[in-house]
């Protein structure tokens, strides 16, 4: 893996010293260990949180002995009903009730255990011993319960915040197959995975990434299927990331990919739980991030970007034909304009004479050479596409109509371009949208610009030269140690069942070998046995 070596910048440190950032005076500095007194503990919380208006600190007393207690939580991240009914009510009211019915007060040194075991009626309760842990918990939506006389804090899970419901993934729609997609909440996403694999060997581990953001990043794999080396490598790369804030899983992708000097995606991105689960079953590792509806799947090879979830739900013959169509779409999207330029300006003899004559006739009024014509039209197309993508849907369609029909027609009538060139651009555009993965489609579509330049310089030889260099680049790429062009280079014939075409499911009884799965066979599996291995 390549990294720019990020040494702490000495200039930055100097600058920080010059700017004189507000430092706490020695008497205000906070000792991060917890105290036994509620008041002192609250002081420590307040030292950090007193300026934030969304933090709620509620002081109250417990039971008949009126032991001072306090709750700390962030408003908006918690479910107020749970706090009122499940935390405050038992502690303030029911413990007192218990004490009166028993006619004896609870001993002060046991009160912590009693609250934890008898009073709090919430599912998840933990103890933390440092202020750091407590902050992380509180700021991710849990409630800190501070009880006087103990240097530890009870953390009760009362998370609840507004979230988007499960919707159909807009970037990967299918005609047939499940319609649910990941959401921005990590727990919902892991639940979607869990609902599809009820196997104790499905492991979902969480690490925190980002110094300030402290975003939960979960990686999921099936123990006994995914290679242990792969899991360790994912863990290592995730732990290596040292940045303050992450907003989307695509940023994690940028930090854990093998090579950032290429524009081919080396990690598969999906919004679909079914696709993620299928990848887990192939021995891959999925990385999910809180706040992001996109799961990352590693390792990824080039051919994976031509697979769609629907391939496996449709009859295999139809799916195979469609997959072949996608491969030819990739070739058309990257090469059509270059071949047009090469043939028109260097090798008109290659195509039938009638066609040459009709092309020449349409090009007669065009004042530019084919190269300029192609470049002009392709750039116009990219402009229209980008404009359409960034606008609201209704206006986007208008852009499509204006661009496609009016500008195209007008350009031909004005004699700026030939009708054949418009056809070429249209073919390129349609062919590029056939590729299911957005980032792969983008990479393949943009390839046509270097190809056009090469074609204009060296004709069809230039196109081939570009093809060669492209392929050399592709074979040198790796995704988490797996060659990018597997199963074609290096050849793995076992994996060809699901490469250019998709064979019937009955034949694909083995996992792809390129991920080095622990257990290659999909049949005869005993989950409990795998657990003990």
């Amino acid at each position, binding site marked *: 893996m390549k990294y720019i070596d990020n040494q702490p910048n000495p200039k930055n440190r100097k600058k920080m010293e010059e700017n004189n950032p507000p430092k706490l005076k020695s008497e205000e500095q906070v000792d991060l260990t917890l105290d036994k007194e509620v008041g002192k503990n609250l002081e420590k919380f307040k030292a950090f949180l007193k300026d934030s208006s969304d933090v709620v600190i509620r002081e109250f007393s417990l039971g008949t002995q009126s032991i001072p207690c306090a709750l700390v939580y962030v408003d908006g991240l918690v479910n107020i009903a749970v706090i009122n009914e499940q935390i405050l009510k038992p502690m303030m009211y029911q413990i007192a009730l218990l004490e009166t019915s028993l006619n004896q007060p609870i001993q002060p040194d046991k009160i912590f255990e009693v609250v934890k075991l008898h009073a709090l009626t919430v599912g998840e309760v933990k103890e933390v011993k440092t202020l750091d842990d407590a902050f992380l918990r509180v700021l991710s939506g849990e409630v800190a319960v501070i009880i006087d006389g103990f240097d530890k804090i009870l953390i009760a899970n009362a998370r609840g915040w507004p979230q988007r419901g499960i919707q159909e993934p807009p970037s990967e729609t299918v005609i047939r197959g499940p319609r649910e997609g990941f959401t921005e909440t990590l727990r919902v996403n892991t639940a979607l995975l869990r609902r599809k694999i009820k196997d104790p060997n499905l492991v979902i581990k969480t690490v925190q990434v980002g110094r300030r953001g402290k975003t939960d990043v979960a990686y999921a794999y099936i123990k006994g299927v995914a290679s242990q080396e792969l899991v360790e490598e994912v863990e290592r790369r995730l732990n290596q990331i040292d940045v303050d804030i992450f907003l989307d899983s695509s940023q994690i992708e940028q930090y854990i990919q093998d090579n950032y000097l290429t524009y081919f995606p080396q990690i598969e991105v999906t919004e679909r739980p079914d696709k993620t689960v299928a990848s887990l079953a192939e021995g891959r590792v999925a990385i999910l991030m809180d706040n992001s509806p996109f799961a990352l799947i590693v390792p990824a090879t080039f051919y994976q970007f031509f697979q769609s979830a629907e391939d496996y739900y449709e009859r295999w013959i139809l799916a195979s034909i469609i997959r072949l169509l996608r491969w030819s779409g990739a070739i058309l999207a990257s090469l059509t304009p270059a071949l047009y330029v090469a043939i028109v300006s260097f090798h008109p003899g290659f*195509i039938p004479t009638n066609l040459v004559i009709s092309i020449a006739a349409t090009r007669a009024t065009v004042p530019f050479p084919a190269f300029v014509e192609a470049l002009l039209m392709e750039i116009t197309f990219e402009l229209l596409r980008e404009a359409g993508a960034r606008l609201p849907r209704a206006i986007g369609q208008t852009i499509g109509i204006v661009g496609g029909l009016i500008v195209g027609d007008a350009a031909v009538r004005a004699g700026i371009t030939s009708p054949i060139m418009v056809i070429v651009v249209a073919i390129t555009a349609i062919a590029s949208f056939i590729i299911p993965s957005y980032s792969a489609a983008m990479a393949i579509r943009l390839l046509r610009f270097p190809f056009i330049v090469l074609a204009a310089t060296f004709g069809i030889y230039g196109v081939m030269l570009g093809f060669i260099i492209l392929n*050399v680049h592709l074979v040198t790429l790796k995704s*988490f140690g797996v060659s990018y*062009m597997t199963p074609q*280079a*290096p*050849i793995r014939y076992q994996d060809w069942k699901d490469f250019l075409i998709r064979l019937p499911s009955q034949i694909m009884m083995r996992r792809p070998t390129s991920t080095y799965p622990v257990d290659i066979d999909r049949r005869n599996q005993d989950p409990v046995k795998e657990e003990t291995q």
Partner: protein
Amino acid sequence: MKERTDKLSNAQILFVVSSSIIGVTVLVLPRTATELAKAGGFIATFITGMLMALVLVITALLARRFPNNTIIEYSKEIIGLVPAKILGFVFFCYFVCVVTTILRLFFDAIKVLLLKNTPLEVLIITFLLAAVYLCLNGISSIAKICELFEPLVVGTMLLVILLSLEDINFEELLPAFKQDVFEWIYAIPHLTISYLGFEVLLFITPYAQDTSKVVKYGFLGILPSIFIYSLFVAIVVGKVGVEPVTRSLYPTIQLARYIKFPGGFAERFDIFFMVFWILGAYTTVSSFLYLSSVSITRLLGLINYKPFILLIVPVIYMLALFPQNIKEISIFSQYVSYLGVALLAVVVVLYILTVILKKGEALRNDDK
């Protein structure tokens, strides 16, 4: 995570050998074969191929006895330091000459067919730089590229053969069976250049995953070229006739030109053929460029071959531009061919010596 191994798998050995062999010379092979062996050209090609397969097996056996070294190192053990150094240097010169020949032969054809106005200098340097880019990435990348391109190259050739099968005049081939055997034998040294390239085994065996299978997969690697070459010679003669073939500059391309592309999409099949041929030439040039840099590096006792690629490239470039006309190129390629045969003879002698002197690892009887 490192990939389990960056060593060459058996299939990769096969692909590297076969794509180093199938190269540019098939463009002129039918002419050479027919000039020397008349209608029996295809038989002479086939016999040469079989002989070469035999030599390949011997080469692979020699390489297999020293699974951790290239020939530059282990020839010292067999024939002593000074002769080994001389042999290594000859190998280096030979590889450089082969790259030069291939480049020049190929780009003359490209110029005739595709790019009449582009200067040869520009074409050769672009192609060389593309090959350098691949070689700098190491042998495993070269093997992967061979795996990617070889099916396209062989596929196009089979397509040409398949589409030319109509109206072949088999009577043109019949005189072959009345010929003198010596006519075929005489043609053999001239035809060997088409099969050269398996010397790559002497240098890639240390990188093989399973050295005991090198003989088997190397042998499988030469088979496609034997059949494709023989078929080409036979079909060209059958379609065009003996006399026109000897007068044709690039008979194989001429054969492709006769093909009517089904569906009427492409008018000139020869351009289509030539385009995929670029890939074939590329794999050959890259593997020989790699060999030449590795041989000189090993000869000097160094390990990192990458700087030498950049040092060799100007030499190859100038040598490739040196011949003035097609006649000089064919004379040059003839000498290279002879040098190749001589080196193969040396390899065979080396193998016999190793067996007699019991050097290297003893033969294991587990292959084939």
